[in-house]
């Protein structure tokens, strides 16, 4: 495949992917750690490397609202945000999904206030979980570049037409310089067909978007949206297959690492998976039966693929980089409810860690797995473990 390998900051690689996608409108408001992406894009537009309208809006609420407008007239639309910005957009996100507007957004995942914290975790995106967006996690800059291109193809596919978030861990991915392969314009043009909304706002074919629904139709609208989101998986998988054939880089809903026949599986999402892999390598070399399962597709949740990935395990240790204050954390809840109807269920223990940018080193992952297994051994898995917390 035509490709050159270069060392570049992930944020700039994301901007490059957006440029290659020949996006029509970018509406964005700056927030750490997303800034390098939108600054990169602004520079491309200013220098004529990207022909797009760049709307320097006055808030994230307006960023996403502008995205609704541009996507609704049939313009390919991109934005990026994080943390407070994402939750300020929140009201608008749900509308994007319900109106079937295929906006692509990168979220450089960051903790939420308070206390104010600019570093990475998944609290921001977890609050967006139920918004109707397709949500995909990546583990490094190359994956971020790849998935942004895939996202346009998935979101704008006529059988999908749903907005899509690519979750990129703040700093741990966004600000890291790594060697990666780019694609050339010809390859991207072949992969990504032009965007056409079947019911765009058009004076020659007037449509009304955004009716209100009475109780007799609201449930049906929500059901229809849920069905579209679930069924988008087909196109997601197809897109990843096509992307793999083009680049040799294949993506799956749930990916495993040395998980076959492992008694204990660690579950992670996002960039910390790479440290987790090192821990697994070391533990396996010491004869421990441990493996890793990484969830890439968060919404629609890949139940079948997940169950298949964990089918042989006895113990599962789930790492959440977000909390649900007063209840179990989101990833673990999802996993427990996926497993509950199964006849043969592994023991599941929930761990929260890596909040607000706190590192989890390979050594820490080893400890974390052992603490989890310790709880399973004494039959006490009801409480979530706050890993490394000082009390």
């Amino acid at each position, binding site marked *: 495949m035509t490709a050159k390998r270069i060392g570049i900051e992930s944020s700039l690689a994301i901007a490059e992917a957006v440029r290659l996608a*020949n996006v*029509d*409108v970018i*509406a964005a408001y700056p927030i750490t750690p997303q800034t390098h992406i939108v600054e990169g894009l602004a520079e491309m537009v200013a220098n004529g490397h990207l*022909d*797009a*309208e760049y*709307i*320097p*809006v*006055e*808030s994230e*609420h*307006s*960023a996403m*609202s*502008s*995205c*609704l*407008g*541009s*996507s*609704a*007239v*049939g*313009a390919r*639309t991109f934005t990026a945000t994080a943390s407070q910005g994402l939750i300020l957009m929140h*009201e*608008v996100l749900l*509308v994007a999904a319900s*109106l079937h507007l295929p906006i692509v957004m990168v979220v450089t995942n960051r903790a939420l206030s308070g206390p104010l914290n600019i570093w990475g975790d998944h609290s921001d995106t977890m609050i967006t979980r139920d918004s109707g967006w397709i949500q995909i996690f990546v583990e490094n800059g190359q994956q971020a570049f790849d998935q942004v291109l895939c996202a346009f193809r998935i979101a704008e596919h006529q059988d999908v037409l749903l907005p899509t978030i690519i979750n990129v861990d703040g700093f741990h991915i966004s600000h890291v310089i790594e060697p990666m392969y780019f694609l050339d314009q010809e390859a991207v043009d072949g992969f990504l067909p*032009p965007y056409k909304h079947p019911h765009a*706002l*058009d*004076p*020659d*074919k*007037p*449509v*009304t*978007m*955004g*009716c*209100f*629904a*009475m109780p007799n*139709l609201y449930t049906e*609208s929500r059901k229809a949206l849920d069905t579209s989101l679930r069924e988008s998986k087909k196109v997601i998988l197809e897109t990843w297959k096509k992307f793999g054939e083009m680049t040799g880089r294949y993506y799956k809903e749930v990916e495993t690492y040395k998980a076959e026949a492992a008694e204990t599986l660690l579950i992670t999402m996002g960039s910390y998976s790479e440290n987790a892999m090192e821990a697994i390598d070391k533990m396996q070399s010491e004869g421990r039966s441990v493996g890793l399962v990484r969830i890439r597709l968060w919404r629609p949740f890949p139940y079948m693929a997940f169950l298949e990935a964990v089918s042989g395990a006895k113990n599962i240790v789930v790492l959440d980089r977000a909390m649900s204050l007063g209840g179990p954390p989101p990833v673990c809840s999802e996993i427990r409810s996926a497993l509950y109807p199964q006849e043969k269920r592994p023991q599941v223990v929930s761990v929260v860690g890596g909040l607000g940018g706190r590192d989890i080193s390979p050594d820490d992952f080893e400890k974390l797995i052992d603490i989890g297994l310790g709880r399973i051994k004494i039959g006490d898995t009801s409480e979530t473990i706050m890993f490394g917390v000082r009390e």
Partner: protein
Amino acid sequence: METLSIYAPKLVTNKEYIASGHRACSGCGEVLAVRYVCKALGRNTIISNATGCMEIISTPLPETAWEVPWIHTLFENASAVASGIESGLKSLKRKHGYTKEVKVVAMGGDGATADIGLQSLSGAMERGHDFIYVCYDNEAYMNTGIQRSSETPFGASTTTAPSGKNSLGQHTQKKNMAAIAAAHNIAYVATSCSSYPFDIMSKVEKAMKVKGPSYIHILSVCPTGWRCASNLTIKLGRLAVETGIFPMYEIENGKYTLNIDLPKLRPVEDYLKLQGRFRHLDKDITAEIQEKVFDEYNKVKRLAAGNKAK
């Protein structure tokens, strides 16, 4: 009236872009204003509408009263959505051979405009998007049950600023949105009123000629919220203008023109006494309102006269 029915069809298109059958209250001045706005805009228009009465009365799924492309998303973001529509079309024109000439219009009530949506409106005007913003101002949040807004006039009783033993109702003065819009240095700002169809239409036509943002603020009588008879809509709108309570003017590139310059204003009482929302006001408060109206009216007059002097 008979003469009007002969001439009106020649002056105004009989094409409707907000069709009858919508669910507005009888005597609704807002929908009247919107109807004239749309007649002036014509078919090559995309409307971004804020949440509120006009959205609710016109689009119960699966029905719609709109005959132009129309989008409603939220309460406070009509201007930001319009920004995206305008930018999207610009991009499509430059890159993808799109050739239609479309006017982008954002619309909202006084709440959507002067309160919760003020930031997004200010942002869109400051960025210079080519769009018209229309505020149909019925002086309260009517859709949710007559709660006060920053456009509710002094002395009016609303459900969240009711009159009572210790309150005269609204104790703040009406926010001056036209001045706020003009402070963005936009080319065209105007006020109008739902009782003056030709005024509305000619102002919309002027706004359509502007490249960049323009703002039209239309006082729109709401019999339900103002607690008046529904056959008084037209009369009350006229009284608002004739008493000087709501002067109709334009601000073109910063220059004020008073469109209806009355030699003598009618007493405010003529206007207040027809509305339940002012029923509780005593003579002293009415006198206070009268004085304030003179002040404000003279301010606009002076601004307009200043232009002439130049």
